[in-house]
Every structure is written in structure tokens, then in C-alpha cells.
């Protein structure tokens, strides 16, 4: 199925989509658990409190400012005319969500989807900055993402911007397709994670002067794996709701979308399980969790278009490259990403977007997907990096060395997540 002019939604479709959107926060809860479990025990409470705080900041800022710039509530938009074609670059809706109640039902659903999407987006860099990224800086970055970056991306890709209109204006496929937020949420989240990791630097002692990098395993594999199960529930809802809202999928297509989502995650897990079993002799739990999540992320782009076998293939490819890329980033490129968000969300999201180009029925769709990817890498990544670098001058990202040694829990919130447990010092890892 491909996007067409937005049809008016029936009451039944509205009710179903709303119900799906109420399940979507399970994916956010899953990611929050994964972030916490993959960090260290002495930073666990700060990690989980940070998830709540970042979601709150992002929701408030998006409601006040961001939603007006996405243009999902209609009214006006900023349109440039280049080469005789209109290029819609920014929406200009009412601030503070005024007029939301009177808007068309599909517009209200779109805003609800966006506010949940931005809540998910801000959690992705938070996990990568675990154990050294200050809570205040995390909240400030969430505000920047919700006020500037996400609204631009959402307008370009979902709300009738120039990427969405590539098909109508330039006869390039059906426009850039991203039904479940692979680009607007996951690729942008992965690129934000890379920017945070570069700006904040690695954890203390991660890359010693001699030898390989120090292993700093997550403190709770059960949080991580249960987070994966929760994420599945949310992702099923997210992909089906996205298919209805952004590509106007008929109800009959939804079971296929859900099946494709599950198959993609399953293929990814099977592939990561096999790769880690082959490389290390035993399957690695945290990498398998990363693989599962990478399969879900890849499905965000193409579950609405791919066949079941295609989804299994997409997930399988994501599951193969995820453990390998995590290793390359850490060992070869000195990138300290505790949750693997750069690979799991950034790289798997890009792969899903490319795969959507192969599976969507419209001719020329792959070119539309490549143009969208070029915008993500060539426009959004430098924008995020320089905004974060500027922010770092006013709200320093990195905690001071004493705070890092003590643990983020004691330093930032004055109490640990597990007060009766012994807290490991950095020297324990050497």
C-alpha cells in the first residue's frame, strides 16, 4: 500500500487507532527498562528517573512549540519555490495545541502519534550517555529535540513536507515512506546518540592506555530482556497505528503489518543468537536483546509494505550486522555506547528505510528512500551535533570526575537504586 490523499477516518478506525496509540507507550517503557538495565547499578535510579524527566520535558516542549512547527494541525506552512516546484519546509500551526479539539480526527491522531514519537526519540540518546550524562543536560537536549529537530523531521516526512511530497512534485516513488517512525524517531535518535557520545566522551576507564577496551556489562539482564518483551507489544501497536495514520492502510492490512513486525524481530533475534553463539561459543544476552530491538526498529520502516518472508529477511540482516557493528564501534572506533543505540536505532533504522524502498510497490521508491536518508545524514546529523555542542557550552553534558566515580545515583539524586547492595568502584573492572 502507498500513501494517498488522507481519507476521512470512520468512527471505527478512529477508535481502533486510538486504542493502538494507548498501547504504544509500552515500547517507551521497554526502551526505558533496556536503558536502565544496560547501565551500571550505581546509575540505575538516575537512568530511570531521567527517562521520566526527559519524556515530561519533551511532551511539554512539543505541546507548546513543536506541534505547531510540524504542521499536523494544518493552517499554514512555509513553502519555498525552487525550480518551479513547491518545497514545504516548515509547518505553522497554532501554538500551545490550540484548536486541537476542533481539528479533524485524523489530525488529532497524528498529533498524538507525534507526541509519543518524540517521547521515544529523547530516550535513545539518554541510554547512550548513561553513567556520565548529567540529568539537566539530558533534559535540555530533550527540549532541543522536541522544539526544533523532531518538528522539522516530522513535517518533512509525515505532515506533507517536501520529502513526503517527492512523489507528487518530482515523480519519485510515493514520496519518502516511514510509516512507523524509523527515520523520525530511530535514525534521528541514533544520530543524536552518536552526537552525545562524541560530545560527552567515553566513561572513565573505558579505553585504557593499553590493551582492549574495558568491558562494562549492563547490571541487570532481566530488565533488558523483559524490556524487549514490553517493546514488542508497543511496537506492534506503533507499526499498525503508523500504517493507518501515515500511509492510510486499510484495516485488512493490519494483521499483516503486525505479523511482519514480529517476524522481523524474530529473524533478528535468531540471527544475533547464531552470530554471537558462533563468535563467543555461547549466545550473548545483551547483544541478543540489541538484535531483537534492531529487528523491531527495521520493521518500523517496512512492516506495512514487506511480505512475511521479506520481513524475516530484513530482520535477519539487522540481526547479523548488529553485534558486528556494536563491536566495531567500540573496539575500532572508540565509541562508548552502553545501550548500542547508534547501531540498534541508527543503523537498523537506515537499513529498514532502504528495505522499504525495495518492498514498496511504487516504481522509483528506492530513490525516494535514498533522498530521505541523505537528508537524515547530511542535514539532521550536523544540525543535531552543532545544537548539542552549543548546548554543551551552557549546560555541560558530562558529570565531574568525582560524580562519575561515585555513581550518578548518589551524585545527582542523592540515593541509590539498590541501597543494600555493595556498589562497585571503577577499579573493579580492571
Amino acid at each position, binding site marked *: 500500500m502507498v500513501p494517498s490523499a488522507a481519507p476521512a477516518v470512520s468512527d471505527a478506525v478512529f477508535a481502533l487507532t486510538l486504542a493502538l496509540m494507548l498501547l504504544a507507550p509500552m515500547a517507551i517503557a521497554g526502551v526505558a527498562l533496556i536503558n536502565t538495565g544496560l547501565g551500571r547499578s550505581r546509575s540505575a535510579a538516575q537512568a530511570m528517573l531521567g527517562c521520566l524527566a526527559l519524556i515530561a520535558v519533551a511532551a511539554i516542549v512539543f505541546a507548546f512549540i513543536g506541534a505547531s512547527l510540524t504542521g499536523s494541525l494544518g493552517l499554514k506552512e512555509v513553502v519555498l519555490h525552487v525550480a518551479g516546484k513547491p518545497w514545504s519546509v516548515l509547518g505553522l500551526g497554532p501554538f500551545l495545541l490550540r484548536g486541537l479539539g476542533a481539528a479533524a480526527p485524523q489530525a488529532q491522531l497524528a498529533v498524538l502519534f507525534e507526541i509519543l514519537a518524540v517521547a521515544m526519540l529523547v530516550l535513545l540518546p539518554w541510554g547512550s550517555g548513561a553513567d556520565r550524562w548529567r540529568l539537566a543536560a539530558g533534559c535540555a537536549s530533550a527540549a532541543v529535540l522536541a522544539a526544533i529537530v523532531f518538528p522539522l523531521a516530522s513535517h518533512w516526512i509525515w505532515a506533507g513536507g517536501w520529502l513526503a511530497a517527492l512523489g507528487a512534485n518530482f515523480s519519485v516513488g510515493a514520496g519518502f515512506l516511514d510509516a512507523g517512525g524509523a527515520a523520525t524517531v530511530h535514525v534521528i535518535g541514533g544520530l543524536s546518540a552518536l552526537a552525545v557520545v562524541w560530545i560527552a566522551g567515553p566513561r572513565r576507564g573505558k*579505553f*585504557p592506555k593499553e590493551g582492549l577496551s574495558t568491558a562494562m556489562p549492563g547490571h541487570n539482564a532481566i530488565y533488558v530482556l523483559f524490556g524487549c518483551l514490553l517493546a514488542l507489544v508497543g511496537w506492534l501497536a506503533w507499526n499498525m497505528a503508523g500504517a493507518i495514520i501515515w500511509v492510510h492502510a486499510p484495516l485488512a492490512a493490519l494483521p499483516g503489518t503486525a505479523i511482519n513486525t514480529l517476524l522481523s524481530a524474530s529473524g533478528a533475534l535468531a540471527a544475533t543468537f547464531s552470530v554471537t553463539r558462533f563468535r563467543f561459543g555461547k549466545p550473548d544476552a545483551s547483544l541478543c536483546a540489541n538484535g531483537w530491538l534492531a529487528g523491531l526498529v527495521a520493521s518500523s520502516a517496512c512492516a506495512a509494505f514487506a511480505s512475511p518472508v521479506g520481513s524475516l529477511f530484513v530482520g535477519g540482516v539487522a540481526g547479523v550486522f548488529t553485534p558486528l557493528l556494536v563491536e566495531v564501534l567500540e573496539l575500532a572506533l572508540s565509541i*562508548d555506547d552502553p545501550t548500542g543505540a547508534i547501531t540498534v536505532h541508527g543503523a537498523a533504522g537506515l537499513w529498514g528505510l532502504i528495505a522499504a524502498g525495495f518492498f514498496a510497490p511504487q516504481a522509483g521508491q528506492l*530513490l525516494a528512500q535514498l*533522498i530521505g*536518508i*541523505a537528508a537524515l545524514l*547530511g*542535514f539532521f546529523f550536523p544540525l543535531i551535533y552543532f545544537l548539542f555542542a552549543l548546548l554543551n557550552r551552557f549546560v555541560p553534558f558530562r558529570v565531574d570526575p568525582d560524580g562519575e566515580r561515585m555513581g550518578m545515583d548518589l551524585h545527582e539524586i542523592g540515593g541509590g537504586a539498590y541501597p543494600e547492595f555493595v556498589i562497585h568502584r571503577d577499579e573493579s573492572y580492571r
Partner: protein
Amino acid sequence: MKYAGLLVMPAGFFLTLAALALFPDPGRRIAFVLCGLAVEGLGMAVAVRGHMLPRGGSQP
């Protein structure tokens, strides 16, 4: 080095925009878009290289 790569990446993006604006035929468009992505890849490689730490760089 850190910032040079990040400043090169938008050049690749503008190449893809130029492909849309200048070339109606799909062949040239694809070639230009691929060139744009290659420039972005080059910029990313330079940025990664610029951010790589000397060993021991994470010690306090």
C-alpha cells in the same frame, strides 16, 4: 578534523537537492543522489576519525 567532516556532510545533502531540482531523468538523478551519499559518507568518515581518542583518553 572534528568539525570538518560534519561541515562536509551538508554538501552531500545539497547534491541530492540539486539532483531533484536539475535533473528530471531518473538516471542522472540516481547518479547525483549516490554521489551526494558518497560525500556524506566521506564526511562521516572524517568526523569519526576526528573524534577517535588516543588510547587512555578516557582516563581522568
